[in-house]
């Protein structure tokens, strides 16, 4: 693993808040909504009116258990809701219902991979359920803050990692992996732009080899994966400079200014509140039977990890390719659909290459997702089979990908209609080669004179003349023969 900083070991832990995909709130029956006018989705419970009482949402529990299982956690059969007491306008009760001493999930992990480095296991300390706060809008008036409680009470899980991450890139990989599994098991849509996934990072530096952790700072309100990595890089720089100069890092909560690529202090730790956690007397401890946990586990779709292992096992894919394919359900589905549509022959590895290289590139170019695409597994399999059989050159096949992707179609038909069939027989190619040799006497002479690179030039000319249909290997063979070298 390459070092995030030459002189210091970087220690990062992430706290991720993720909104569960329920229709109503955690303890109130108001609807979970997005973008509606303020306070259009409240009940007396969300408003913390006198006499209101909380009742736990059954679906939220199920989704939280799914999230915990997907993160390889131990689901606790007995967990307790606790009140976290503090005053803030978007916290109507003056306390948040969360979990403290007895959370729902403990001791999980996620495997991540950055670049070509070996996969690393990142520990997950705990996952617990809690309700979201409302929104305080500060920028609509000079003297007032406006409070919207539509979001107050929305179900969240808080996922706390061990301080096992060692670089901003690892942090990014962890977040992407987390999002993928949460989406796969249907626990959350985890759309960061809608605030369904929020990330706070704790980061400290220490000299390589040192056992004790350095003083850490907390970065809050990071609302995209890119900003998380950027902010962490900026904070590493800041802390490193400070330590280099012999200074001390102050414990603080920081925000990140993406425009200036700089962190700023939100508050120092001296002002930290005493939350006075205690079990919520309005709620009964959450008891989940082992049987129920197993039922939920059995109902989960195949998780990326398991799929990755299976792809390697069943299709002989390399770990890296298997990993990339299994991260996206749509990609994995297309891959397997293509492999199964392959008549005889083992094209799995080639299909994987075409997907990860050409299809992904074409999607990226148009900023599209597989959900927008019309490429079928069948079509992909056909295309790859044709290339492997030499019936179309790789280049020409590559050019067909965008069309197949976004407009669909039948590769065989397209190749035929456009006359893209590869030329690989002597009878078709020899005359082309002769034409090129005749038209480029200098290159021929050059080659005879020992410049082997002239061959490539001549090859290029043949390819051009054939409109890319010529089988490169065959052309090379014929050229070499005719040049006599």
């Amino acid at each position, binding site marked *: 693993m390459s070092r995030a900083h030459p002189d210091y070991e970087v220690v990062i832990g992430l706290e991720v808040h993720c909104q569960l995909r329920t229709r109503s709130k955690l303890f109130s029956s108001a609807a979970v909504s997005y973008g509606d006018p303020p306070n259009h989705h409240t009940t007396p419970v969300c408003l913390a009116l006198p006499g209101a009482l909380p009742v736990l949402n059954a679906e939220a529990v199920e989704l939280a258990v799914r999230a915990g299982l997907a993160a390889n956690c131990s689901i606790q059969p007995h967990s307790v809701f606790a009140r976290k007491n503090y005053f803030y306008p978007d916290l109507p009760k003056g306390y948040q219902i969360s979990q403290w001493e007895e959370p729902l999930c403990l001791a999980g992990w996620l495997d991540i991979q950055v670049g070509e480095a070996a996969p690393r296991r990142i520990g997950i300390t705990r996952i617990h359920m809690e309700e979201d706060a409302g929104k305080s809008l500060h920028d609509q008036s000079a003297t007032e803050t406006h409070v919207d409680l539509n979001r107050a009470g929305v179900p969240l899980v808080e996922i706390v990692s061990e301080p096992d991450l060692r670089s901003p890139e690892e942090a990014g990989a962890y977040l992407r992996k987390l999002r993928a599994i949460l989406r796969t098991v249907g626990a959350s849509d985890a759309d960061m732009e809608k605030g369904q996934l929020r990330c706070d990072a704790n980061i400290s530096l220490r000299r390589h080899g040192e056992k004790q952790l350095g003083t850490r700072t907390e970065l809050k309100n990071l609302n995209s994966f890119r900003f998380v990595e950027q902010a962490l890089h900026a904070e590493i720089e800041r802390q490193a400079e400070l330590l280099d100069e012999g200074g001390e890092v102050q414990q603080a909560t920081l925000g990140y200014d993406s425009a200036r690529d700089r962190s700023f202090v939100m508050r120092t730790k001296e002002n930290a509140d005493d939350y006075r*956690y*205690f079990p919520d*007397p309005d709620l009964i401890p959450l008891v989940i039977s082992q049987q129920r946990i197993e039922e939920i586990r059995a109902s989960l779709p195949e998780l990326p990890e398991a799929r990755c292992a299976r792809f390697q096992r069943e299709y002989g894919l390399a770990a890296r390719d298997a990993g990339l394919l299994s991260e996206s359900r749509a990609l994995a589905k297309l891959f397997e659909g293509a492999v199964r549509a392959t008549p005889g022959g083992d094209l799995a590895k080639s299909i994987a290459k075409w997907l990860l290289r050409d299809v992904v590139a074409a999607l990226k170019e148009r900023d599209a997702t597989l959900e927008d695409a019309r490429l079928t597994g069948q079509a992909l399999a056909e295309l790859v089979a044709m290339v492997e059989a030499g019936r179309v050159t790789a280049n020409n096949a590559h050019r067909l990908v965008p069309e197949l992707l976004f407009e669909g179609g039948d590769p065989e038909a397209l190749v035929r209609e456009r006359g893209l069939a590869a030329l690989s027989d002597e009878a078709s190619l020899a005359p082309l080669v002769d034409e090129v040799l005749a038209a480029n006497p200098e290159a021929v002479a050059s080659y005879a004179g020992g410049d082997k690179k002239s061959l490539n030039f001549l090859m290029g000319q043949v390819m051009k003349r054939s409109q890319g249909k010529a089988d490169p290997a065959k052309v090379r063979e014929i050229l070499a023969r005719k040049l006599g070298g």
Partner: protein
Amino acid sequence: MAARLPGVSEARRALAAGEQSAVALVDQALARAEAVDGELHCFLQLRPEAAREEAAASDARRAAGSLRGPLDGIPVALKDNIVQAGEPAGCASRILDGYHSPFDASVVERLKAAGAVILGRTNMDEFAMGSSTENSALGPTRNPWQLERAPGGSSGGSAGAVAAGIVPAALGSDTGGSIRQPAAFCGVVGLKPTYGRVSRLGLVAFASSLDQIGPLAHTAEDCALLLDAISGHDPRDSTSIPEPPTCAAGNLVSDLSGRVVGLPREYFVEEGMDPGILGCVRAAVAELEAAGAKTREVSLPHTRYAVAAYYLIATAEASSNLARFDGSRYGRRAEGVHTLTEMYERSRSEGFGAEVKRRILLGTYVLSAGYYDAYYRKAQQVRTLLRRDFEAAFEGCDVIATPTTPEPAFPLGAKSSDPVTMYLSDIFTVSANLAGLPGISLPCGEVEGLPVGLQLLGRPLDDVPLLGVADAFQRRTRHHLAVPEEAAG
């Protein structure tokens, strides 16, 4: 002077016999309030037009033969911490000035479904914190038996309204004795049901694990009617027990033969106890024996720790429950506030009375870093020991009998200065809340013209048998028929 209203059972009979209409009952209640409540101050709010409308609807149902149940047409009062849609709910506090609830408490829904007529809202100690109703921000309620005496608290207004004959029945709330103690001081029957028996939805929370709504009326039979109407599982209250409404009325078993009444030695000490009260209670126990019950001494060894445990747990929960009163979304906001902190601090400091502030501070302290284990957690452990005391005692008896209070109604102003002394008057009542047991206080005599309460405690869910023992006692005695002279009609 406007006549006292009859009790619930008598009012039912009169309505059924056509001797009185529901509207006439309401008019009588309003007249009675007019006559005596100026002095007593039991009510904070009356709703004459709405009550007459509800009564008229009841009379129409009666004429059409479609009564909703035994409470149809009966006027009832609500303690000011039980919310009703469209009506003010103040908990006798300034901080809820102007607040109107958009929803009905579960018990109010059920009373309406039963056809009861809601006359108005009664005075209480602010946020139910107190034992005398002197902590009301709107002035105290006077004891109808002797006007310079406290009616008890925190449900002093409800107890007084029944004792003074303004309404046949009222609802109160009991967290540490707030139904039973004022019932004792005012010479009426007050029932605190098993915890979870009656939904807390719409009861403004004081201490969530201890609060229960319950009825105050003249007889156990009347309380039974009310309990039947308001009890039963409510899925909107997570602490509601999964039991159907009780079927107590008409099913009270008043045969005491074979029943064993336990007498806890820790409650029958002479020190700190008015000897007249001890005498009345012993006589009451003798009456139960005469009715066929056996008595035996039991022990509740952790009794002396109950008040301490109670105040730690109750104030901790209260400090959190009252955090929502911050001037931001409802209730009173202090004038001229420029910062958020100022809004919170001044709204709360100006809106809460001294006792509420004291308990919030104590509760905050008890939960704070470094003190949670020594105070809050410790108190919850002692609570477990108290529960075990009762479990052990109930292995040898069916019901436990004690005095409700160590002294009769004290003079207004007598207790206000020392909080610990005030808290100690709850000594006999708090254990039932800590253990979740049903408890009832019923009149069993007088001391110097002031009522004395006999308390009966039952096993969890034994509300109906408990009412049965109380009913048996009342069939054999006449204490519940005594009425205060000063407020006599």
